[in-house]
């Protein structure tokens, strides 16, 4: 068991499961890089896959069509039932996601998933996104964590969850046929955030005119509402503008449930950041390519990656190294992940960053080998509820900027007190026959030499195992990674 093994499991992973530090200690860097590849997929409780984004869009479309056709007094009731069903989809998806975090033997891959999902934030606090959140991460993020940034960006920009969340599904070229008929128009929201938050960064070099230009290029990028009768006048008009599935299938990153509507697309060529882009789907597609490969994107992503895995204020030379690798490999995310593992700055002994609530609770469950088979569902729900009470839940950030990745945002007075409260409550449920000595043993095996003698002493002096465990889970060494 080595210090590097402890750091690999905590700083790059999700906290130690029984025996994990020992496994990682032989060759910590290899243990990490061997995890790189398409991420695991959460599955339903019965082992079957969750619904695709396309199937969820079809459900939504069918529901809307039924409602419109019915025109009945029980509409409100039907809507409530449907909303309930959508919330259940979200709960099931998130529950499976938590379970994967508790049990995975590829915790570094899972951390990368969480990093990229937060980078490309969609939030279930936005209207209409709840049922799509799970599919978004499964389809647009997990396949690409060790792939190409451009593919992930395209998958994100074509996923129903994102198209709904940042309103692009409803953005219509004012001079398009649909725009002229419906007198609806452009929505800038996605065009702006695509550059500011997901690729170039706010100082990446773009103007308000570029925001409008990108919004125009992306008009018509919407969700596949299926049948011609499935969505009112605009949808009927747009039906004629469907591009063939063959065209899209050639484009690897395009998400299921996406559809390009020619007749909502703002006609004409568009100038974006000094370059002219063609009309049609090809224009937006080319803009995505250029944004993915822009040097500003390499810099922005490298900075966020370094902050996530190295420190709140990473050394500039680490950021530059990551930036160069991202740029020189054309945005190869596996190369980026390998590079951060090989950065000496990521292996310093220092106190490390605070675990945000979801990561903290995941680490507690991994340490205690929870959930137990006989009580699995309830214990997973308990973890999810605790995350909510601590003010963080996956894919529910208050804005498209996502959850903060700075320690200070997770260590305020109320945040610290609620973590201690959680630790106390969780530890009070330890089995009666658990001994203080077992807790110190667990602490040694999870934290190794990172556990200070002083902390170890306080834990060892606890009156009973429950108190000892609560102290371990409350300790600075356990909260930081």
């Amino acid at each position, binding site marked *: 068991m080595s210090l590097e093994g402890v750091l690999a499991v905590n700083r790059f992973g999700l906290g130690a499961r029984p025996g994990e530090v020992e496994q990682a200690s032989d060759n910590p860097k290899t243990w990490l890089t061997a995890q790189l590849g398409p991420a695991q997929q959460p599955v339903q409780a019965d082992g079957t896959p969750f619904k695709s984004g396309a199937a969820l869009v079809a459900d939504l479309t069918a529901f809307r069509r039924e409602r419109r056709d019915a025109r009945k007094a029980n509409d409100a009731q039907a809507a409530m039932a449907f909303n309930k069903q959508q919330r259940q989809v979200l709960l099931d998806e998130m529950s499976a996601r938590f379970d994967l975090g508790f049990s995975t033997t590829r915790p570094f891959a899972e951390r990368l998933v969480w990093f990229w999902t937060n980078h490309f934030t969609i939030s279930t*606090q936005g*209207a209409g996104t709840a049922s799509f959140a799970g599919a978004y991460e499964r389809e647009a993020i997990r396949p690409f964590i060790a792939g190409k940034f451009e593919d992930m960006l395209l998958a994100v920009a074509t996923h129903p969850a994102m198209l709904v969340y*940042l*309103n692009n599904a*409803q*953005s*219509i070229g004012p001079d398009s046929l649909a*725009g002229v008929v419906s007198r*609806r*128009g*452009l*929505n*800038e*929201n996605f065009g*702006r955030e695509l550059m*500011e*938050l997901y690729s170039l960064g*706010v100082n990446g070099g773009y103007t*308000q005119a570029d*925001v409008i230009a990108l919004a125009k290029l992306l008009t018509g990028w919407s969700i596949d509402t299926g049948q011609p009768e499935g969505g009112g006048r605009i949808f009927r008009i747009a039906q004629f503008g469907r591009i063939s599935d063959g065209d899209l299938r050639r484009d690897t990153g395009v998400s299921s449930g996406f559809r390009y509507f020619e007749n909502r697309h703002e006609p004409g060529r568009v100038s974006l950041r000094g370059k002219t882009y063609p009309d049609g789907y090809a224009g937006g597609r080319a803009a995505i390519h250029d944004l993915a490969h822009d040097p500003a994107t390499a810099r922005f992503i490298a900075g966020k990656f370094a902050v996530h895995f190295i420190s709140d204020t990473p050394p500039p030379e680490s950021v530059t190294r990551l930036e160069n690798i991202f740029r020189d490999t054309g945005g190869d995310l596996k190369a980026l992940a390998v590079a951060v593992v090989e950065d000496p700055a990521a292996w310093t002994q220092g106190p490390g960053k605070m675990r945000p609530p979801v990561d903290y609770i995941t680490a507690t469950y991994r340490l205690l080998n929870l959930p137990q088979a006989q009580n699995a569902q309830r214990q997973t729900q308990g973890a999810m509820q605790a995350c909510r*009470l*601590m*003010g963080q839940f996956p894919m*529910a950030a*208050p*804005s498209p*900027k996502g959850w903060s990745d700075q*320690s*200070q*945002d*997770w*260590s*305020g*007075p*109320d*945040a*610290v*007190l*609620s973590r*201690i*409260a*959680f630790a*106390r*409550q969780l530890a009070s449920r330890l089995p009666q026959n658990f001994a203080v000595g077992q807790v110190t043993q667990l602490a040694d095996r999870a934290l190794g030499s990172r556990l*200070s003698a*002083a*902390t170890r002493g*306080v834990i060892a*002096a*606890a*009156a*009973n195992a429950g*108190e000892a465990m*609560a*102290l371990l889970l*409350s*300790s*600075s060494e356990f*909260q*930081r990674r």
Partner: protein
Amino acid sequence: MDASRRSLLRGLSATTALCLWDAPLKFAFAAVPGDRRLVVVILRGAVDGLAAVPPHGDKDYGSTRGQLALATDGATPLHDLDGMFGLHPALANMKMLYDAKQLIAFQNICSPYRDRSHFEGQNVLETGAAKPHAIGDGWLNRALTPMGLADSGHALAVAQTPPLLLTGPARATSWMPATLPTPDAAFLAQVKLLYAGDPALSRSLGDALALQSAAMIASDDPSDKKMGPGNNANLTPLFAGAGRLLAAEAGPRVAVLDISGWDTHINEGAGEGALARRLAALDGGLDALKTALGPAWNKTAIVMATEFGRTARPNGNGGTDHGTGGASFLLGGAVAGGHVRAEWTGLSTAALQDGRDQPARTDLRSLFKGLLAEHMGVPPSALNGNVFPDSAGAPAMTGLIRA
């Protein structure tokens, strides 16, 4: 004596046991601060100022706002203020405060930020700098020292962790409606030992305990436990909790509430709809704050500000996109209210910023500076020094607070 208390005495020396009570005692005996209360409500996400304070008397109002226009009649009439400006129909309590001369509405106001990124705009709003990321801490924190409130416990963030506005050299604490059962004091004393080598956690825990042992929040109301500031729901627990804390004799004097949910890109609605519901929640929250403050209301000023306004015209989806100038509010028992302050330039295309946004004619820092000066006694040297550096072009407003 219960089991955990016994274990404390067995496990710890008398000295460490005393440490537990150290913070509350200091808290209780700290120099009694002045009795003025200052509340800053950050409305995160860019509130549509033309919806909150509709200029219904402007000749271009109806044509510019289109489907978003509010009317003085109908099912949800706006509240007229002075024939030119009104308040959104959902702001009934705020209208009553206006009538009681306890509310000032501002129009065409904005921070000095002129681009349209939420996150840069919020940074400028909170740092008090002239441009994004120029300063690393918040103007309200820097103002605590000249207010004489730099000691721990005088400044409160209603959040799990203080926002940038309250981050800086002075100590600020944070509180949210109770969630998990708070551990017993004996256990917390042991945890304090664990944080001896971690200044950040040690400080946070000390501040949390100080606030708690002041016992000003004893609410076990289960309705307090579900709502966060990001939820599109009842804001009453947050505002009422802040009010209870602020009302206490030795409690905080400055509080920050952080309310999001204003980024109305689609289906904003007019008299009814998404924005109306959010405004109603805010209006209800303010009423709960007033009630909880009790007599301290007369010593209170509440300023509400957002990062920028929104486009004057609706976008393609019945919403509005990011803009420039917007609305702001100052209210409270200490406020010399009952009027609207606006350097109004109209809604014609020529008058709009870049032909699209409500322009900004007043710098928000002028409002903040005037408020800090008149209400909290912050001297001009501090206001123009490190509280709002580079703000010479934004002179402090006057006549905001009752003499």
